[in-house]
């Protein structure tokens, strides 16, 4: 069986789906693996094990659903053994069991029960590898006591005493330092102390002008020019054409701000922020050509001159270039990727 680390490699999209159920899925994987091992398998493909455990979980859910349906059909909320047997019969009808075609047979004599008892008698009992606590763990929430429970009278007459108490005013009027995890905000006192008394709400009010250093989302928005940032270098074509258009203003601004922001190294860009023109000359241009269908959708930006020449030949000799040759070049690349993919399907031991 695999160690825990290798079995956690799941694609990001699948990970999101399983986020709430990861623990149960992991246990299912182990259980299914143990059953398969007892049958005779010595190893599994990761994807096969994942799929299989998923199917097993869905089977259990399906039994629950169908049994619940039969219980509801009989006017009960709690299922009994006959609901479960009927559910199993429904699910295994495609496979077939002894007595499936009988109309009037009693459920206790169902072929399913006989198959199961036979299975229990003949198969070895394999315990699950780990001991599991009961899950999901329900966290106990401390609810605010009502006025009656606390033995206090509500401040005004129109508040009934069975409602929960107001929070301690100190919790939302004092200027406390915020932790990043806290969702409730503590604004400064003075004018806000009047608000809870006035409208009776226990919710703290946020003061937007407070520049709280701990919560970046509440900080005052930056004025333009306040913070230094790296300059975006425009490609040459845009600069030439934009003398008349609106972009000219932005371009000139960038040029002016370029020399002033010489000490900026915000991102990991390796181009010098001296003046816009210098940047453009040292970097090779991005050549993008969009074409329909099979023609190349390439955006090559290579540091050396060789790359530029190769890209240039692709676009210059389009008609001359033999399509088959192009495809031949691509095909080995695709095949390689396929091999890599199947190779990556790691074998789980």
């Amino acid at each position, binding site marked *: 069986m695999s160690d825990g680390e290798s079995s956690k490699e799941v694609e990001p999209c699948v990970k999101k789906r399983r986020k709430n159920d990861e623990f149960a899925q992991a246990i299912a994987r182990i259980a299914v693996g143990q059953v398969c091992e007892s049958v005779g398998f010595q190893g599994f493909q990761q994807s096969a094990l994942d799929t299989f455990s998923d199917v097993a979980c869905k089977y259990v859910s399906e039994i629950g659903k169908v049994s619940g349906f039969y219980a509801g059909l009989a006017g009960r909320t709690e299922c009994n053994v006959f609901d*479960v047997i009927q559910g199993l019969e429904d699910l295994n009808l495609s496979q077939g069991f002894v007595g499936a075609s009988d109309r009037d047979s009693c459920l206790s004599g169902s072929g399913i029960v006989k198959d199961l008892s036979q299975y229990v008698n003949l198969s070895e009992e394999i315990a699950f590898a780990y001991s599991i606590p009961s899950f999901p763990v329900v966290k106990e929430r401390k609810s605010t006591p009502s006025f009656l429970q606390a033995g206090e009278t509500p401040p005004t007459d129109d508040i009934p005493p069975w409602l929960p108490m107001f929070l301690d005013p100190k919790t939302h009027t004092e200027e406390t330092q915020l932790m990043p995890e806290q969702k409730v905000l503590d604004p400064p006192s003075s004018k806000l102390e009047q608000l809870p008394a006035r409208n009776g709400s226990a919710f703290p009010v946020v003061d937007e002008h407070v520049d709280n250093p701990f919560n970046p989302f509440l900080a005052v928005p930056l004025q333009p020019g306040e913070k230094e940032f790296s300059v975006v270098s425009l490609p040459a074509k845009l600069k030439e054409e934009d003398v008349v258009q609106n972009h000219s203003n932005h371009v000139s601004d960038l040029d002016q701000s370029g020399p002033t922001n010489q000490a900026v190294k915000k991102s990991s860009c390796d181009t010098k922020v001296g003046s816009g023109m210098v940047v453009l000359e040292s970097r090779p241009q991005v050549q993008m050509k969009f074409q329909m269908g099979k023609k190349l959708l390439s955006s090559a930006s290579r540091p050396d001159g060789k790359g530029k020449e190769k890209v240039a030949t692709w676009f210059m000799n389009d008609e001359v270039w033999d399509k088959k040759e192009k495809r031949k070049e691509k095909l080995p690349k695709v095949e390689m990727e396929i091999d890599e993919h199947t190779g990556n399907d790691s074998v789980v031991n």
Partner: protein
Amino acid sequence: MNHNQQSNEVRHDDENALSDFLASLTDYTPTIPDELVEHYLAKSGFQCPDVRLTRLVAVAAQKFVSDIAIDALQHCKARQAAVVRDKKDKQQKEKRLIMSMEDLSKALQEYGVNVKHQEYFADNPSAGLESASRDE
């Protein structure tokens, strides 16, 4: 009258068998743990305080899994036997039995579960197509 008595006896036997089976479940610990089964049953709205029923569902699920596993194992062995015949290499027989997606999908197909694994992944819609279909 006799027929009724006979059918009553048969029913009695069946009920005995069922109650015996349920009693035996308390001794038998299925490989699929109870907590997991309870979690998924609770998710789908199955309410039952009786632990024997949970065990019954667990045993049923275990039987389901083992049936599919046996089918997949047979597919795997059949493929290995075919390979051996082609290559006449005795070393092939010592290869370990590994559950692959193909065997699993074939086994699941018989149970009505369609699991189709991607044969290949392409980076654009025209990858791998024949040249005739590519002409526009």
